[in-house]
């Protein structure tokens, strides 16, 4: 379970949020500039809250004067434009986060990811040689290859055309079914997308949670 209490002063407003996420898809929905990405960055350890606490699966990631470094948080992060390493093949991108000594044990997990996402045929290609939808799948595989305890997705579908977007939404839901033990925290400014993907939707504005509802899918 993820338990978040974050307080952080931003340039135009104060970010002040409390929420929990179980093994479900939680969507942070709100207009651009409402502090959604800052929350993801705080959870990943890329930014520090001014105060508050972050617990993941019972461990303290931030709070009580302690901050676990980003490398040790076991938090997968899918960035808005995917941030695939342009000088590495798809295969190298996916294996990047897996330590050499763990590689034999992880082969099965990664094979499964490649099958589920249908990207086996892309392994030798480079990021500039694949489409937007394929990039999104590769980035997902890369983030899940490290077997994180939490997956953060920052506007994961915003760079895609309508058709690919709908297809990738279904894929995300299917993927979560398979990795049910991992909470997915998705940021989006698109209400339709939020309602399609989220088990729970947290509506944000100016750094505050203004509404929350469950999705009856």
């Amino acid at each position, binding site marked *: 379970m993820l338990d978040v209490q974050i307080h952080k002063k931003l340039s135009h407003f104060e970010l002040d949020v409390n929420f929990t996420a179980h093994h479900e898809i939680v969507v942070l929905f709100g207009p651009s500039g409402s502090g959604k990405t800052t929350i993801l960055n705080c959870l990943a350890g890329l930014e520090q809250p001014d105060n508050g606490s972050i617990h993941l699966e019972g461990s303290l990631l931030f709070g009580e004067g302690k901050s676990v470094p980003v490398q040790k948080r076991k938090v997968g992060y899918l960035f808005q*434009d995917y941030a695939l390493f342009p000088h590495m093949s798809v295969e190298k991108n996916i294996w*990047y986060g897996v330590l050499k000594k763990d590689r034999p044990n992880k082969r099965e997990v990664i094979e499964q990811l490649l099958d589920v996402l249908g990207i086996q045929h892309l392994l030798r290609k480079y990021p*500039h040689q694949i489409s937007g939808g394929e990039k999104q799948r590769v980035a997902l595989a890369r983030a899940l290859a490290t077997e994180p305890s939490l997956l953060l997705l920052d506007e994961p579908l915003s760079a895609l055309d309508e058709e690919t977007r709908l297809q990738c939404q279904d894929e995300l839901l299917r993927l979560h079914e398979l990795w049910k033990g991992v909470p997915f925290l998705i940021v989006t400014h698109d209400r339709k997308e939020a309602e399609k993907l989220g088990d729970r939707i947290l509506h944000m504005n100016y750094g505050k949670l203004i509404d929350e509802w469950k999705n009856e899918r």
Partner: protein
Amino acid sequence: MAPSDYTPLILSLKVAAISTTIVFVTGIFFAHLFARKQFFGKSLIESFFLLPLVLPPTVVGFGLLLLFGKNGWLGKWLLEWFDVQIVFSWIGAVIASIVVSFPLMYQSAAAAFENVDGRLENAARTMGASNWRVFWTIAFPLAWPGLLAGLVLSFARGLGEFGATLMLAGYIPGKTDTIPMAIYFAVESGHMEKATFWVIIIVALGFSTITWLNWWSKRNMRRFANEKGR
């Protein structure tokens, strides 16, 4: 026309190679250290780094002489403790070369690291990569075109260094006579043929270096444009 003694060529290549190696490592170190950090005094430090670009070489040489001369702050210490004399030695030529070529390496490396997308480095960190691994697997390879440009320019600058070298290392045939030095003193003593020979050598070296760099960077620009356009 060719002189019988090729010491200037060998010495110039030795001085430029050693100074470029040192400048490559230190330039990358400081450029990477400063690339993503904003702190009080950063622009002052950077101005100090780049100062040799705008100062006359004689001023740089004068400063180095004050520092490394027999009675200089560092020179005295080096002589007393390590029995190493910097003035009138090829090491002096290396130091002069380092000081004048460092700004070129620093500038190229700083621009190259600033162009590396910080999100890629963050993505690597979220996958557990240490800062050292992030540097070697992400920042360094992505900044490589800029780093290589800095390397080549520093080498060319080190090869052509004259003013500061003359003031610190002096002109001792067989010991500190780099090609630019040999040209100057050949002209001084009326040996125009010898001077012409070394001029041709250094022009050829400089020209081939710059031509190669131009060709290489254009090829990379084209490849980059193609990749972006896909």
